[in-house]
């Protein structure tokens, strides 16, 4: 008995966590998937009816907007945050004397809740008293900067705030990547008389492919889950102009009482995430086993 216990202690220790993950992640995904195939509304029903919820979803103009916004937001957010992060990392990599302090400044937004970020930018961007009012008070009476309340432009304020929040983190990732490049390769290139910018474009950046991938995964994951920021900054408005799948799902689940729609939209979100993350994780685990 003690022998058995001794042998199986590791499994017994891991078991509760594993069972919890099985039930609360995989079991719950299965439940949501199941319900997304039923006619559930206010209360869940369990008779499978096929894809009606998904049909309703894709017929809904609000969902259409949400998906569109996710596309615009995701694309701009990921591209700009990566680009900005890389530039900042390269700038900071030039033997800057105050690197520590500057890094801290670039990074601190990461520590904030998206609700705080949203609140701050909502105040800064509000046309009545924010940037617009400030520039007007400087004498430019015709200056307009009303993105926050302009249905066409509101989604870009979300992009702006999200980049402000996350680009420092990408910078940190890239900076670590730049520093991990073999110093001897760089020295060899310098001895060969290759100019600094070519060293970056031809040697250092290509060798950081794994970091680009990590940054991409982290950012796309953030983009798809983004919920707090939209709620705090625009509340999904004006109208539904800045709805994302995450806010759509939440609205269906908790204010509209439409469980079927909530479940099917959540499933779509999960599929998008998995399409991006699964190949990445698979290759990661593969390479680590080898």
């Amino acid at each position, binding site marked *: 008995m003690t022998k058995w216990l001794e042998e199986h*202690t*590791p499994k017994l*220790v*891991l078991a509760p*966590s*594993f069972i919890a*993950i099985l039930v*609360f*992640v*995989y079991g*719950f*995904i299965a*439940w949501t998937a199941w319900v997304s195939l039923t006619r559930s509304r206010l209360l869940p029903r369990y008779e499978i009816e096929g894809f009606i919820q998904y049909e309703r979803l894709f017929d809904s103009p609000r969902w259409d907007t949400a998906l569109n916004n996710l596309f615009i937001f995701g694309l701009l957010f990921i591209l700009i945050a990566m680009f900005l992060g890389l530039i900042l990392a390269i*700038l*900071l990599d030039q033997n800057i004397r105050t690197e520590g302090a*500057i890094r801290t*400044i670039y*990074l*601190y937004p*990461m*520590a*904030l*809740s998206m*609700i*705080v*970020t949203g*609140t*701050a930018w*909502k*105040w800064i961007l509000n046309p009545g*008293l*924010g940037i617009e*009012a400030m520039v007007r008070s400087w004498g430019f009476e015709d200056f307009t900067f009303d993105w926050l309340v302009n249905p066409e432009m509101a989604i870009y304020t979300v992009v702006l705030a999200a980049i402000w929040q996350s680009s420092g983190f990408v910078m*940190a990732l890239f900076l*670590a*990547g730049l520093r991990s490049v073999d110093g001897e390769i760089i020295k060899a290139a310098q001895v060969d008389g290759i100019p600094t910018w070519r060293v970056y474009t031809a040697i250092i950046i290509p060798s950081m492919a*794994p*970091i680009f991938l*990590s940054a991409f995964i982290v950012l796309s994951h953030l983009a798809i*889950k983004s*919920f*707090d920021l939209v*709620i*705090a900054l625009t509340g999904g408005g004006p109208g539904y102009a800045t709805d994302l*799948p*995450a806010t759509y*799902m*939440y609205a269906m*689940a*908790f204010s509209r009482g439409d*469980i079927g729609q*909530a479940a099917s939209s*959540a499933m779509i*979100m*999960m599929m998008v*995430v998995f399409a991006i*993350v699964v190949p990445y994780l698979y290759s*990661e*685990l593969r390479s680590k*086993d080898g």
Partner: protein
Amino acid sequence: MADLSMTQGVRQSQASKIALRWLLYSLLVLFALFYLMPLFVMITTSLKSLDEIRTGDLIALPREVTFDAWSTAWSSACTGIQCEGVRPYFWNSVLIAIPAVAISTLLGAMNGYVVAQWRFRGANIIFSLMLFGCFIPFQVVLLPMARTLGIMGIAGTIPGLIFVHVIYGLGFTTLFFRNFYVSIPAELTKAAKVDGAGFFRIFWSIFLPLSLPIIVVTVIWQFTQIWNDFLFGVSFSQAGTQPVTVALNNIVNSTTGVKEYNVDMAAAIIAALPTLFVYVVAGKYFIRGLTAGSVKG
């Protein structure tokens, strides 16, 4: 002649080097201003009176510093029908975060220790499944979790939120510790086994004392995640148990009465203070630990 043009060339390249350096620093400062501006505006706004906000400039320093907005935000701002400020919600967040961080970190440490040092058949598959769990969009578990919390009788309670945070934090905490412990040679465990130590003894006497760097990383990560969480807070709490992020959002978006921007900003800073504090005090270690892992991976 040749000499002269040489020195000129050198001088020129030196001049352009200095110019480049200036450009570099100006760019860095410009970006620093971009990142600092919102914090600056938040702080100055929170110290202004409402009159000054209406008449003054967004980025101007307060003409007259007043802490009224802070005391309102802390103890009397309205989050919907209640008007008790963020104070009770701040303590809710503390009561949620501390146990949830402690439990999920401890479990993550044990799990990571098993997966990295006590490999058994299927351990890798179990770890992969736990890892995938980190990446799901939580929307996909909101509905069944709401029902489950109800069934368990902890819907809308602080223990309920602690439970949720522990469950969905496990993947990351396990990952952190696992990545840390795989770099420790297996011979250490073997030596301790030969010395007669068992599973728990080896963990307490040998692995835990080694783990300070990764405990710091995990605690900071979990604390930031849980303190800053909004989705679980807004989905699984009720009037008395909301965390501070939910309260902040309610204050900012409450439609009753005059918009008090200074109070909003003060409340936002209060909500941000704990994580900012942790970041400033221990952020160095976090970045060091985190980037070390991500570069290796």
